[in-house]
């Protein structure tokens, strides 16, 4: 049964990802830096938070503390409403977020090997506009979909006490589509349409470090400080345009395949703290910067702006005793984030903020379910912009077993 589950999860992870906002039109769509459900419940705060049950992809150094082989996979449900002067639009989507496997190779030095597949960016919009073309009424439809995924492989270890270092490389791949259609309600006019597809591939790298001796310095239960850095990535991207249009004498379908061009993903770096206030509570916050102004495809930027993200969370496990009721052994978190996004439209920077709730429930000694809810807002309904309100529900299952570890019996 587990094998069937793994196969379903893995296959489904390869599905294209959707987003539900016109703001995702730009660049390669919305980037998702934190894909574990636990970190989602923590408002994305994860740079300095170790997790024994679920691997987050932001800082590979956080993988160090897993004790058993960990497999986790998640999915999410999103319901959003976009609002502007033209009205409101609702959007719903359900999809997978990640599949990650972490294997502890050596316990003393905390060597952990991890690999996984996750959705890195998402594009999704579907918009129409009634227009007049050549004195005829027509409908312009704009549709975007797709995104890029990353298959990552990483290693983390502890070179010295209280210090953990991790590296990962990711193979980025996927297709982003932007299409447009001009539909005439007139038999003498043929609909015109285009579909621009960008196929992306290439490697990116991330390094991270966590020092966990901050508690002694601060006189608290424990304290971690983490830092991550991901340099610019030179990916390759090929553009293909399919178009179907009418000329004065014929309807023509045309496909133009461009050569591979350089696509530069910008650097990002982040700093995070995780402070154990006592045995039950810890408080964490992250700062993340991404240099989107360096984003380029085929030498052209999209006038994106550098983004910054701040997130905070407070997390608690009321009772760690295995004999305690399940509700007391569960992990609860509350988080808040604010992101100055990479978009500037009509002279106005687009911001996003949200609050999160997370619950992690141990099903058994080897299984853990994490869930998270985000309520967020993006943009605003003024100056020709749109206001997105969204709720996302994340769910992941985390399984762990002993692999590759010699027991005393052996």
């Amino acid at each position, binding site marked *: *049964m587990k094998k069937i589950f793994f196969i379903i999860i893995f296959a489904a992870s390869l599905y294209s990802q959707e987003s539900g906002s*016109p703001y995702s039109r730009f660049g390669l769509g919305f980037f998702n830096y934190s894909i574990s459900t636990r970190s989602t419940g923590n408002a994305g705060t994860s740079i300095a938070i170790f997790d024994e049950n679920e691997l987050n992809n932001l800082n590979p150094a956080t993988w160090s503390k897993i004790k058993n082989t960990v497999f986790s996979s998640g999915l999410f449900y999103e319901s959003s409403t976009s609002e502007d002067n*033209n009205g409101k639009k609702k959007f719903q989507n359900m999809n997978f977020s990640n599949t990650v496997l972490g294997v502890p190779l050596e316990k003393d030095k905390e060597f952990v090997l991890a690999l996984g597949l996750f959705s890195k960016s998402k594009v999704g919009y579907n918009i129409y506009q009634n227009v007049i073309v050549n004195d005829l009424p027509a409908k312009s439809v704009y549709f975007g979909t797709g995104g890029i995924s990353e298959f990552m492989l990483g290693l983390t270890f502890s070179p010295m006490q209280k210090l953990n270092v991790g590296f990962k490389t990711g193979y980025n791949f996927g297709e982003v589509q932007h299409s*447009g259609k*001009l539909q005439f309600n007139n038999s003498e006019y043929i609909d015109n*349409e285009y579909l621009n597809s960008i196929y992306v591939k290439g490697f990116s790298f991330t390094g991270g470090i966590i020092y966990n001796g901050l508690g002694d310095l601060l006189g608290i239960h424990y304290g971690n400080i983490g830092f991550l850095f991901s340099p610019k990535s030179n990916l390759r991207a090929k553009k293909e345009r399919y178009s179907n249009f009418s*000329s004065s004498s014929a309807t023509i379908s045309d496909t133009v395949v461009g050569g591979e061009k350089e696509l530069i993903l910008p650097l990002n770096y982040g700093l995070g703290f995780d402070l154990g206030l006592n045995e039950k509570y810890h408080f964490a916050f992250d700062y993340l910067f991404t240099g989107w102004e360096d984003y380029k495809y085929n030498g052209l930027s999209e006038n994106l702006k550098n983004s910054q993200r701040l997130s905070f969370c407070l997390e608690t496990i009321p009772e760690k005793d295995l004999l305690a009721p399940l509700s007391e052994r569960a992990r609860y978190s509350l988080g808040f984030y604010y992101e100055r996004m990479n978009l500037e439209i009509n002279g106005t920077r687009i911001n996003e903020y949200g609050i999160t709730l997370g619950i992690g429930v141990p099903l058994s000694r080897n*299984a853990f379910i994490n869930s998270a809810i985000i309520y967020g807002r993006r943009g605003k309904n003024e100056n*020709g912009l749109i206001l997105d309100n969204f709720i996302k529900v994340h769910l992941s299952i985390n399984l762990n077993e002993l692999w590759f570890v010699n027991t005393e019996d052996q």
Partner: protein
Amino acid sequence: MKKIFLFISIFILLFLVNACDDTPSEVGISVIPVTDEINYKTLETDSIPYTTEIIQKTVIKSGQEYLLVGKSGNEEAITLLKFTGFPDTLASATVIKADLVLHPTNYSLGEESTFGFTVHKITSTWSVTSPGNAMVTGPLYDNASVGTYSGAFSDTSAIYVPINTSLVKDWLYYASDATKYNLNQGIVLTPSANSNCVWAFYSSDNTTYSDNSKDPYLRVIKELNGKRDTIYVYPSEDTYYGYSRNFSLDQKNIVMQSGISYRTKIKLDLSRIPKHVHITSAILTLTLDPDDSKIGKNSIDSLAALANIYNSDGVLLQSFNVIGTPIIDNGKKVYNFNITLFVQGWIDKWINSGMEIFHLGELYSLDRYSFYSKNVVDPNKKPKIKITYLNLPY
């Protein structure tokens, strides 16, 4: 635990089927960049500068339907015929009578009643592929006439033009001696001095009558050894040659002179049209100047625009034609050329060498088509260019 896995698997599969509920709405249209828009844009004459240039084409007139003879203003046409198919056994025959038989077509240009031509012996070598400009100016045919004709035609019935029998006698003699064979270079039909008309005759290459019934030929009545009979000799070569005595390349109008042949090359400046657009329509409209045009009776009234595609080394790769047929617009005769294909090619990849406008009867007539240029005062008569393109984002 198995139940949990089963539940989650089913849950996932259900949502995979119903994953996305997404119908288009107008919300968010304001943030879609204008570069994504599919739109039509139209550029008209004022936004499309162009240049015109009159060029003369070297036209090889072999294998043509018609043989033109006559004069229209400064433009003239002469017809050359060579008859070499005589038996080599008639050197001592007596030529009793010889007639050049021609079949007129219904094409004529000018005052039909003045039509007339004289026949002369050609004195230099020629072939249909190179009649040579010297045919006009040099002493390449005898001034002495060996035959004349005058008068109009009411149908395509054969006309018989008596030819000097001495000339034909010489041809019979040349046919019997291989060393003198080349002395027979045939005859040339030149317009009479008072003729102001051009007429077309069927050539030996005409395809209108596949049974050769309208081909020109020479009818010779000869007598040899007291026996008289008639032989018919068809031309081994025939062609016509048109020329102008005073054609200026600096015309006030856009001019096409058939038969010689002059064309006008028009080159559009398309720099205002972005790359990667689809040209949905490109129309060039020319308005005929009737006062400066001379168009014959029963002439083909269509014109063509020709785009030659060259590589960067100037080697011709391909040619494309589009036809322009006349319509009457507010009493004016206008020609519309759908040059969509050309403009698309010039935008995409072709080297823009312009397009040549020429009369489709360029090889069959001496017509002059003259169109108002941008210099004309009346804006309604100026050439018009209208290009509509579809911007499909790339």
